[in-house]
C-alpha cells in the first residue's frame, strides 16, 4: 500500500494538486464537509422519523423520498472529493489505520442504507404499520447514526493517526 501511495503521489494529477496545495486541498476538504452535512443531516432526519422524534406528520416513505436523494447525492459528492484528496495526498491518507477503518464503516453503512431503501420499497405497508415501531429497527437506526458519528471522527483522526500506536502503519514507517 505504501508503494502504491508513493507511486500515486508521482502521477501528474497528484503533482497538479500538490503544486496548487495552497487552495486546492482546502477547497476540496470544504466541499467534502458540505457533503458530510448533506449525508449526516439526511441520516439524522430519517433516524429521527424512525425513532418518532421528528417528522411524525409524514409517512416513513415520504421522509425517505424527501431525504434519500440528498443522502445518495451527498455520498457521491464525498466519493468524488474523497478520491481527489487521496490523489492529492496519497501517503497521508492511505498509510493510516483511521482511513481504512473509516472506509470499512462507510461500506457497512452504505449496505445498511441500500437494504433499508429496497426493503421499504418492497414492503411499504409493513414498514409503515409494524416494522417502524419495532425496538430492533429503532436500535438499528441509532446504530446507523452512531456509525456515521464514528466515520466523521475517523475522518478527523486521519490527521492524528499516531494515537492508534502500533496499529498505525505510519508509526512503523
Amino acid at each position, binding site marked *: 500500500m505504501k508503494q502504491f501511495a508513493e507511486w500515486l503521489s508521482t502521477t501528474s494529477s497528484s503533482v497538479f494538486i500538490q503544486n496548487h496545495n495552497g487552495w486546492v486541498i482546502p477547497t476540496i476538504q470544504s466541499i467534502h*464537509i458540505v457533503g*458530510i*452535512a*448533506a449525508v449526516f443531516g439526511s441520516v439524522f432526519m430519517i433516524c429521527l422519523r424512525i425513532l418518532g422524534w*421528528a417528522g411524525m406528520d409524514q409517512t416513513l416513505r415520504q421522509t425517505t423520498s*424527501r431525504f434519500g436523494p440528498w443522502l445518495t447525492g451527498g455520498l457521491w459528492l464525498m466519493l468524488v472529493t474523497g478520491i481527489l484528496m487521496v490523489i492529492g495526498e496519497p501517503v497521508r491518507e492511505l498509510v493510516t489505520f483511521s482511513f481504512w477503518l473509516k472506509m470499512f464503516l462507510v461500506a457497512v453503512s452504505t449496505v445498511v442504507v441500500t437494504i433499508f431503501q429496497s426493503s421499504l420499497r418492497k414492503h411499504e405497508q409493513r414498514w409503515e404499520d409494524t416494522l417502524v415501531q419495532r425496538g430492533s429497527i429503532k436500535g438499528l437506526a441509532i446504530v446507523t447514526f452512531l456509525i456515521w458519528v464514528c466515520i466523521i471522527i475517523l475522518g478527523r483522526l486521519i*490527521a492524528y493517526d499516531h494515537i492508534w500506536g502500533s496499529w498505525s502503519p505510519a508509526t512503523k514507517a
Partner: protein
Amino acid sequence: MDIDALLKFLEASGLAARIRDSVFLFPMIESTHVIGLALVFGTIAVIDLRLLGIASTQRSFHRMASDILKWTWGAFALTAAAHAQDYCGPGATIIEFMIGQIMMP
C-alpha cells in the same frame, strides 16, 4: 479589552493544559465540532429549502420549524461548546480567535 492578555489567560488555564497534554482530547473536540457543524448546516438547509419553496413544500412551515429547529439549536450548542474548547488548545493566536468570531453564526 487587551486581546493578548485574554489569550495568555486562556493558554495558561487548566483546561488548556489538559487539552495540550492529552493525545485524544484535541482531535475528539475537533470531531465533536464537525459533527455539530454538520447537524446545524444539515437541519438549517432543510428549513431554508422549505422557505425557498424548493423542497417539502407540501408541509406547513410552522410544523417543520417546531419539528426541526430544536435539533438545530441543540447541535449549535454542541458546536459552540467544542469551538470554545478549541481556543484553549495549542497555539491560540489572535488571528484564529478573530476568524472564529467572524465564522460563528
